[in-house]
């Protein structure tokens, strides 16, 4: 039920992001979602792509430090209160969110949010019990 996210170490320097995107483009890998976290000196780029294994290999070949992390992608309805509902569920279940970001979904009136969770197994259990649909990695492949 987890999907694979690529995390890439970047120095805060000109042209670093462009090198990541052009490497992925050259290898025909499609970016589905991204988030960038940064400090004064460096940043961590997090990516959901259609083919994480090939994505990781091509970025490593280009000399980058890449980590593949498991995250949860939850489909929520794209209207006020959608995200709030999931977060309240996590809160009640004492689930810690390390970070989260949104996903661009073209298919239907749904939004997809990516969560990095401290206790992923319990989070998945809660979401399932509440009937919240999780996005599977096989779905990402087709996008």
């Amino acid at each position, binding site marked *: 039920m987890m999907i694979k*996210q690529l*995390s890439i*170490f*970047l*120095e805060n320097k000109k042209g*670093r992001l462009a090198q990541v995107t052009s490497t992925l483009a050259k290898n025909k890998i499609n970016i589905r979602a991204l988030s960038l*976290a*940064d*400090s004064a*000196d*460096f940043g*961590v780029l*997090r990516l959901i792509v259609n083919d994480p294994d090939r994505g990781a290999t091509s970025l490593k070949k280009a*000399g*980058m*430090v*890449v*980590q593949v*992390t498991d995250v949860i992608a939850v489909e929520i309805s794209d209207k006020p209160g959608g995200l709030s509902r999931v977060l309240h569920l996590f809160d009640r279940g004492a689930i810690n969110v*390390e*970070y989260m970001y949104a996903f661009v979904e073209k298919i239907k009136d749904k939004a997809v949010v990516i969560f*990095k969770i401290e206790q992923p197994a319990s989070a998945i259990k809660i979401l399932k019990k509440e009937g919240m649909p999780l996005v599977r990695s096989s779905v990402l492949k087709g996008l």
Partner: protein
Amino acid sequence: MIWDNQSETMKRDDITTLQAERLGNLLSRLYKRVPFYRERMEKNGIRPEHVRHMSDLKDLPFTTKEELRTVYPFGMLASDKDDIVEIHTSSGTTGIPVVDAYTAGDINIWGEVMARCLTMAGATRADIIQNAYGYGLFTGGMGVHYGARKIGAMVIPISGGNTKRQLAIMRDFKPTILTCTPSYSLYMAEAGREEDMDFSKVGLKAGVFGAEPWSDSMRKDIQRKLHLKAFDIYGLTEIIGPGVANECSKHEGLHVFEDHFYPEIIDPKTGKVLPDGEKGELVITTLTKEGTPLLRYRTRDITWLNHEPCSCGRTHVRMHRLLGRTDDMLIIRGVNVFPSQIEEVLLKIEEVEPHYQLVVERRDQLDELEVQVEMNENMFSDEIKNLENMEKQISAQLYGILNIHARVKLVEPRTISRSEGKAKRIIDKRPR
């Protein structure tokens, strides 16, 4: 195994007698043949025949790198130019290069001392030596080559650089001994890992690494990654090239071949000779050199000596692995900092690799030290707070050793320049 049992296990008294005799010969040759030295001796009222004992050496003048530059290229020759069969020079990156000119006799001695070094690392005629020291004016390549030829081992004279080819040769020829700079050995290990190369399958048993200071933790790192025993070798162009000293299998210091090279440790400020165990600048007198012999040459390398007998059976004095260079030493806010200290700290943190650079700047009249450390997969976390903690942890440990605050900056892999020979560790941007 000892290559030259008679010379390497000589009794202390016999060593001293031999040294005094050779020093006497050296001084009369220098007086007769090298105006540079004759002038100095005359100025100081020294006649070669006045020097009888090794203890008289302390009254003789030093020779410095700057002085060698003033007589470039052939001013230090103590033999006829016709008798010189080979020359080597330093890289000249810091100014006019210094020249080492060898007679056939010098080349023979170079081969002998290098054979001693390689034998300490376990080399026999059955071994295959991948010699990745540069061949050319640099002494590393030819020095190892001559030593290997004395032993009768098979040499692969691949020289430095071209890492892909190094790895291919390693896979195909299965060398048992690798010779190169320690930083290049790690560079090869890294490049090999990217190609999924399994170094345990190569069958390397030893590596003879030198030409730059390295730490004990770096040794462990090299041994683990390349599956070999790492031996430290010491030498310098001015004296003969590699082959001045080498570690035996006990790894408790490097035996200085004192039948050819007489070592002293001095206080770099006062020039006073220091006793065993005290850190200072290494000074070497070449006792047997014919081409360009040197009297009390100041190496700028910092170490200490130990005359206690070694359990390997050799009697030659041991020098501690290099602690740094007098000119590599950074003085930051009045504190002496050696790159090797910083390397020790980094290597103690498990995930960190010894790819670092020190940048010193002056801001608002204050020296600031930035330690740039390359990111690698093992230390990477996708959470900013973990990475910031890593920086703080390194900085705290550096403070513990150096007593100054250093700013730690994580940088992308392969961004710190690694020459394929010696690594550039220091960028000093302070106004001079």
